[in-house]
């Protein structure tokens, strides 16, 4: 009798948790669709070229850290230098690469070491040299050579060297849309009542897409099932969730692959942290906390246009390591900023965003795993209600498929990135099967991340990249 009572109680807790999560997702998905439609209609009237000719355009510095990227670094630099913006500089930070990353850049752009006084605004390891090109055509390229200190350290070095009022942090191997900066600068220019401290953009997967000379030529759904599941996952995350969070100014994460930041605010907040592998999220949280504590009106904005294309992991091993790292980064961020948890002084961040990340981003895989263990225990004890079990499973599955279909529908109604019947068929197929093989793996990796975190594991772990539209080549991140 007692056992049955507790079993029922726990079942209800799991159910309520699931229903609240489902409700949050559907509300944010519908809100996001509305916002995206409005955004698409509005941007169709915006002539971004006007920024190109305006003397009022603020200077932007693009900071791209590079570690052992010798193979693709010249092509990647070319892609960055060809971006459309009137007043920008590209700063590639060679983070103590062991390969020929620096030498290839020197050779390709005929760089010369220049005298450069660096203000140590934010903490970073020693800068060995700053290189500039003699050629006027690439005078906006700066290469910083520094001792190895990891991605956040390299970004901090870039912040110390850069001259722009705003800086964009990007992964050097990403492919940006030519007008990415023009689109991302707009929120900074539009606000009058509050200060925009950061803007993020949609990241999409470029596996199997055709890329030539640093430009995306043809968009395809990847053949690899793991990458394809990530395409859907990114669509759900970026199209159905973040847009709505940005609308209520509740965004706590700007992806490290592409983000535009106000340099002054970042400097005052202390730059990127060396203490975590989730440096992108940690910086945004710290900036937000600082603004809240100063009682300054601010906003973190988000552009729903697909602006950045990156390569997703195609093997279980690498995907596992990536998700493990993301979990550890999240745990660090939640730990460092636990002060804001349900703290009304931090308004949206304290009362909505942080609790959401705590309960539904960090705790969700744990609750899901516990639910599974709980069902097994009930089964062993012989008190499992099979109807409830199968119904709950069917609810979660049908809801997951429904949400994936919604993401595809939003994409079809707005940006129409995947146009062919073949791509659409592949996406719908993966929506049906992904909950059986991909989702369980990400939950497992997340649990591993929790365990590794408690064991005190630090560092990024190695990543093997295939290279976008290039032959497979192993590299590793710092």
């Amino acid at each position: 009798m007692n056992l049955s009572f507790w079993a029922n109680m726990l079942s209800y807790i799991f159910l309520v948790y699931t229903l609240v999560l489902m409700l949050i997702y559907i509300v944010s998905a519908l809100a996001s669709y509305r916002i995206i439609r409005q955004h698409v209609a509005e941007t169709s009237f915006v002539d971004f070229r006007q920024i190109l000719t305006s003397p009022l355009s603020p200077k932007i510095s693009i900071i791209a850290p590079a570690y052992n990227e010798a193979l693709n670094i010249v092509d990647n630099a070319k892609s960055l230098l060809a971006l459309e913006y009137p007043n920008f500089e590209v700063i590639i930070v060679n983070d103590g690469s062991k390969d020929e990353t620096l030498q290839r850049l020197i050779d390709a752009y005929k760089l010369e070491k220049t005298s450069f006084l660096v203000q140590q605004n934010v903490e970073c390891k020693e800068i060995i040299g700053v290189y500039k090109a003699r050629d006027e055509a690439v005078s906006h390229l700066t290469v910083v050579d520094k001792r190895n200190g990891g991605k956040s350290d390299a970004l901090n070095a870039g912040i110390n060297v850069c001259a722009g009022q705003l800086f964009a942090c990007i992964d050097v191997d990403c492919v940006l849309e030519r007008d990415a900066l023009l689109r991302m600068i707009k929120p900074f220019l539009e606000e009058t009542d509050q200060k925009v401290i950061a803007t993020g953009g949609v990241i999409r997967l470029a596996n199997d897409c055709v890329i030539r000379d640093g430009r995306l030529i043809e968009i395809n759904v990847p053949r690899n099932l793991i990458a394809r599941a990530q395409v859907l996952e990114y669509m759900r995350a970026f199209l159905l969730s973040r847009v709505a969070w940005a609308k209520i100014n509740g965004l706590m994460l700007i992806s490290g692959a592409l983000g535009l930041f106000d340099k002054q605010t970042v400097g005052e907040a202390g730059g990127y942290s060396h203490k975590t592998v989730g440096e992108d999220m940690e910086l945004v949280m710290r900036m937000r906390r600082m603004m809240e504590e100063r009682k300054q009106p601010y906003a973190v904005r988000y552009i729903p246009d697909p602006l950045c294309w990156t390569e997703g992991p195609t093997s279980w091993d690498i995907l596992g390591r990536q998700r493990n790292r993301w979990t550890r980064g999240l745990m660090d961020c939640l730990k460092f900023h636990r002060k804001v948890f349900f703290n009304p002084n931090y308004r949206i961040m304290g009362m909505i965003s942080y609790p959401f990340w705590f309960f539904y981003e960090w705790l969700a895989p744990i609750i899901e795993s516990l639910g599974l263990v709980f069902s097994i225990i009930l089964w062993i004890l012989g008190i499992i209600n099979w109807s409830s079990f199968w119904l709950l499973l069917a609810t979660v599955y049908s809801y997951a498929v429904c949400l994936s279909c919604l993401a595809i529908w939003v994409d079809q109604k707005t940006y129409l990135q995947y146009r062919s019947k073949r791509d659409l068929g592949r996406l719908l197929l993966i929506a049906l099967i992904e909950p059986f093989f991909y989702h369980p793996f990400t939950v497992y990796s997340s649990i591993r991340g929790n365990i590794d975190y408690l064991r005190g594991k630090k560092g990024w772990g190695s990543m093997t990249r295939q290279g976008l539209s290039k032959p497979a080549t192993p590299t590793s991140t710092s």
Partner: protein
Amino acid sequence: MMRINLTKWIAELENTWLDSLSTFQLLLLMLVVISTLTAVFLVVYIVVLMVIRNRRQQWADALQARIEDGIAIWLAGDYSICELISTFQEEIKKDSRARKIILNVIFATSKLFRQEGQSALRQLLTGLNLHHLCYKLLKNRHWYKQAYATQIIGQLQMGLALPLLKRKLQTKNSTLRIELITAMVALGDQSWLEDIDYTNAHLSDWEQILLLERFRRLNTNQLPPFETWLTSTHTDWVLFGIRLCRNFNRFDQVPELGNLLKHPDQKVQIAVLDAFDYLGSPEAVPSLIRYMPQVTGDRLRTTLRVLGNQGDPDLVSLLTPYTEHPDPAVQVSALSALKELGLTKIELRQLSSNPKYIDHLFDPKRP
């Protein structure tokens, strides 16, 4: 036989399984049904959308090509306007959606012509009664359709629509407001200036960029009296006034700009420094000298740079104390300014305790 079995099975299911479900289980069942039906609906919608879109696209592409050809032949003189109108009217008779495509093509074509070339296209538009479609779009509840109609009206110089545009000027949608102002400027109407409250209305940097682009296309005598905005109580308008003074080389406003260095908003002060840097007027020097002791950081560095660019040797004694400023960045800026004022490497070495700064300033590879 099969149907009887199925009916029997459903009845059994209702009597046994469904009846035995608790409220909690029924809720779950309901969620499964809703989610599944929604997913199926979305998939069907996507597929239908794709098929319809492809068909419509093919039809629209073919029609657009015919219209473009027709206009090209007309512009080459091989078609009279009456012939062209009757051809297009045939298309509209076949499918009324053709009106929108014809309007799009006329609008796109009009962008290729200068102002004087618009009258022929306007004649074509009126002949097809498409100007009424524009007016109708202007009254549409969606702002983006209104903005589109406004663009066409401005581009094709449809002066009759001016009162309609004026009525909409109070809109809160900034994109539409800018389109309306642009159209009114194109139609030679400056009355929008009277409708703007310079003491209260916000003006974002984005709007400033768009307006400046419009103003740059105007003759000097067509420009609004932006010098009056320098005294506005609203910072946005003061900023815009300063930026326009800089852009249109208003040297006569330098003393007024100098007074704005006392403005409490740092953005205004930085904009004034930027304007002084660009204009390079010696009249700015007294204001900058008064301003220099009150500021630190980037503003002080910019002030030093602007003074250095003046090239006036009398300023050397004034800038020299800053070579010992506690902020190393200010020291470098002061040394750089003194270099611009003509001091030699040896003279600068005597002023600075850090020879690295001097080497940096005189490095030929310095960016």
